[in-house]
């Protein structure tokens, strides 16, 4: 007997309100990324040797760095490079991964075997090494970051979509569709895809968080955009030698990254809970 468990908890309302905070944070950064030239108090690239290492205070709310550049302005300007890279990388990884996983899981057979072996090999490949090598090979540009990060997501997304497809594929409603002669595209798009959309959505939000993570990390490693860009990761990396002198120069971009990745993670977790509750 299925027990009427405590699934319908009264705190869903409280939860959904708490879920608004991450959305607000993400929207805020999106607005900043779009409009930062109108929002920054100073030119983020402007060097002023008279105000080097100024601690946070009036005039420079988050202080200044070794060149006397305004940290707040640089943090605001640093939102764009991340947000320009992460969503397209996610879209690339999720779209390609879903297509591969759905086709592979529906068709099965030798095609599936080959695809899975290739994905296995790619998955085992250490991502960081691959990223270092690829970027060394292809040069530093947002497009390269999008390609590298997106490509790294393809096997992950493909495997989880394939797993979900295999589960659905074994269900009688798919057998019934095959018995009445539905063609393969119809099986995939009409029958299976709508029923694995939760998996795809959860993958998309999870990968978005990972993409921000990866973009920030690549930037920290000096593999993001060319030097001089106000990227958050690069700012942490460039200023870490001044950690003891001017911790704010490191802390401010670090916390900016933290706020964005945590917001995305909480949003994707909330989404996952909602989809799984159904």
């Amino acid at each position, binding site marked *: 007997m299925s*027990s*009427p*468990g405590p699934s319908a908890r009264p705190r869903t309302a409280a939860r959904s309100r708490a879920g608004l905070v991450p959305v607000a944070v993400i929207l805020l950064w999106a607005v900043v990324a779009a409009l930062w030239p109108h929002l920054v108090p100073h030119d983020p690239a402007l060097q002023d040797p008279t105000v080097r290492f100024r601690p946070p205070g009036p005039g420079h709310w988050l202080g200044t760095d070794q060149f006397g550049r305004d940290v707040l302005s640089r943090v605001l300007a640093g939102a764009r490079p991340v947000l320009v890279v992460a969503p397209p990388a996610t879209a690339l990884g999720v779209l390609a991964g879903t297509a591969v996983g759905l086709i592979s899981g529906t068709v099965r057979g030798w095609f599936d075997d080959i695809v899975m072996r290739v994905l296995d090999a790619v998955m085992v490949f250490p991502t960081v090494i691959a990223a270092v090598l690829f970027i060394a090979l292809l040069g530093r540009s947002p497009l390269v970051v999008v390609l590298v990060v997106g490509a790294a997501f393809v096997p992950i997304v493909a495997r989880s979509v394939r797993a979900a497809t295999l589960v659905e594929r074994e*269900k009688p*409603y798919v057998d*019934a569709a095959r*018995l*009445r002669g539905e063609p393969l595209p119809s099986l995939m798009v009409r029958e299976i895809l709508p*029923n694995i*959309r939760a998996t795809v959505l959860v993958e998309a939000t999870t990968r978005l968080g990972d993409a921000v993570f990866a973009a920030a990390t690549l930037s920290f490693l000096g593999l993001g955009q060319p030097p001089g860009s106000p990227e958050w990761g690069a700012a942490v990396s460039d200023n870490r030698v001044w950690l003891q002198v001017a911790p704010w120069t490191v802390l401010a971009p670090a916390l900016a990254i933290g706020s964005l990745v945590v917001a995305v993670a909480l949003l994707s977790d909330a989404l996952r809970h909602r989809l799984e509750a159904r």
Partner: protein
Amino acid sequence: MTAGLRVEALSAAYGPATVLHEVSFAVTPGETFGVVGESGCGKTTLGYLLGGHLQPGGRHTGGRVTVDGTDILALDPAGLRRWRRTGVAFVHQDAAGALDPTMRVGTQLAEVLRLRGLGRGAAAAEATELLRRVRLPGEAARRYPHQLSGGQRQRVMIAGVLAARPRLIVLDEPTTGLDAAVRADVLDLLARLRAELAAAVVLISHDLDLVGRHCDRVGVLYAGRLVESGPAAGILGDPAHPYTAGLLDSAPRLGMPRRVRRLAPIAGRLPVLGATSPGCVFAARCPVAEAACTTAEPALDERAVPGRVVRCLRPGTAPRITAEVTSQTAATVRPEPGQPPLLEVRGLVRGYGDTAVLDHVDLTIGAGEVVGLVGESGSGKTTLARAIAGLHAEGTGQLRFAGAALPAGLRRRSPALRRRIQMVFQDPDTTLNPSQPVWRILKRALRTLRGKPGVAALAARTRLDEELLRRRPGQLSGGQKQRVAIARSFAGAPELVICDEPVSALDVSVQAAMLELLAEQRERTGTAYLFISHDLAVVGYLADRVAVLYRGVLVEQGPAGPVLAGPHHPYTATLVGAAPSEPSQPALVNGAGCLFFHACARRIAGLCDVTAPPLAEAEPGHFVRCHLDPAALPRTEPTTSIGGVRA
């Protein structure tokens, strides 16, 4: 102090929803009390509450449970723990889930004994002895649960009861999901257990037949209320409450096909949990309800029938179905002379990897004929169904359909050919695409199967409420989903519909409605069925002919009556339930002899284990794969003991 179990006005709820409402009964030591009910009626909650356990979210809202005078629900946690060690023991349906997968079986049993104060060594020795007493070999103690079969695991659970020597034993669906032969064995052990421990026993089940045979007294639970309780024979023979009568009249009986005893399904469906109505909970589905029934809940009536308690204003007034005992011979559809059979299966072999599932199966189905296929789980029933449907193509053997070769794989069947063979599946929850509303499911089926009528006409033909068409499968009950699935399979003009356990996931009252629907569709269209079930009574209700599958081999095939009553294969005899099979031994390694050899009561050593038995025609059209002389084959009178409707 009262010896035994006393349940007084016990109530429980999940959140605001009442699941048990003032349930009262008493069980004396040595007595067995059966609790019968369909899913969602509160059986499981009641069972756990007897051990002082509430499932997550559950609340005890009133009443008492006393065992030998101890008020269980008033004990503090430490006291409850101490009481449970010797006070109560449970046997659940899911023995696999009740055993820790990472601990050896012997260690788990020893743990129970050590809780009773035994030392480590003594507990281990006693555990082995207990396993021996439930007819498990001594080395079973060193096995992990997953290395045992379902029946063996259930025996370990029974050994656990023996270890605890409790005052109260709660058996919650102890044999559901076990195969017929194993089931007889487990029930036999349970009967001995009862005799030995002299404990109060509560047997919870959805199976009326089982409860009728093994209980002294019975309570019928409906929507959390005990609607009727009293002596088992009386209640099952002459029910007073309309719900009890409805349950009995919707359960098929072995040896009573549809033309002899037509089932009467209960209308409507179980009230949603927590739904409240001022009157009787059964009024909405009751055939004899009157105005008074909907205004106030009937009180427990102890005088209407002596020795019984009934919660009904009009006890004993519900109309009953009667069996027409006719001498009418089987109305088997005889194929027109010269016409090929609709479906011919020859030497079909199917498997998964190296495991053979079907071994040279031969089967024919005539146009318009209903062939029942029975066998225990793992016998290959579903594989055979899927092979015929073209969903499992890898393997050898020939298929012919209406005289022409039928390609093994769906992909190689022409669209026109595909439309002639459709399928109805077991699990109502996955049989429909959950993201499409019912009308779209049917519309798509009509389009692809070239069905003539519109969605509304199709729905009407299968008695599907118009208002259900706009719903998605998630908003339908199990019976409604299965009805949509049947409608879908009849969207075109199928000549063969393969029904793979179409009613086994449904409750008795819903099951009857589905069997009736299938029967009506067949009468209307003349479609043939391959009807698969593990339940012989269900198969016997609809089938013209019956085929019996045992571990991938078709051991018997013939007209329904003789196959079920005999002379039949010794294996079929165990399915019908009269002969408990011997405990199964490991399978034959060489596989040269009869696969049933190890469990057969009539085996001929030196013959059956060496030579594969031939398929012999025991009677015209009735084939049995056995070395025994047709005259020596067992015969079985159906042993159904329920009720006065016995033919």
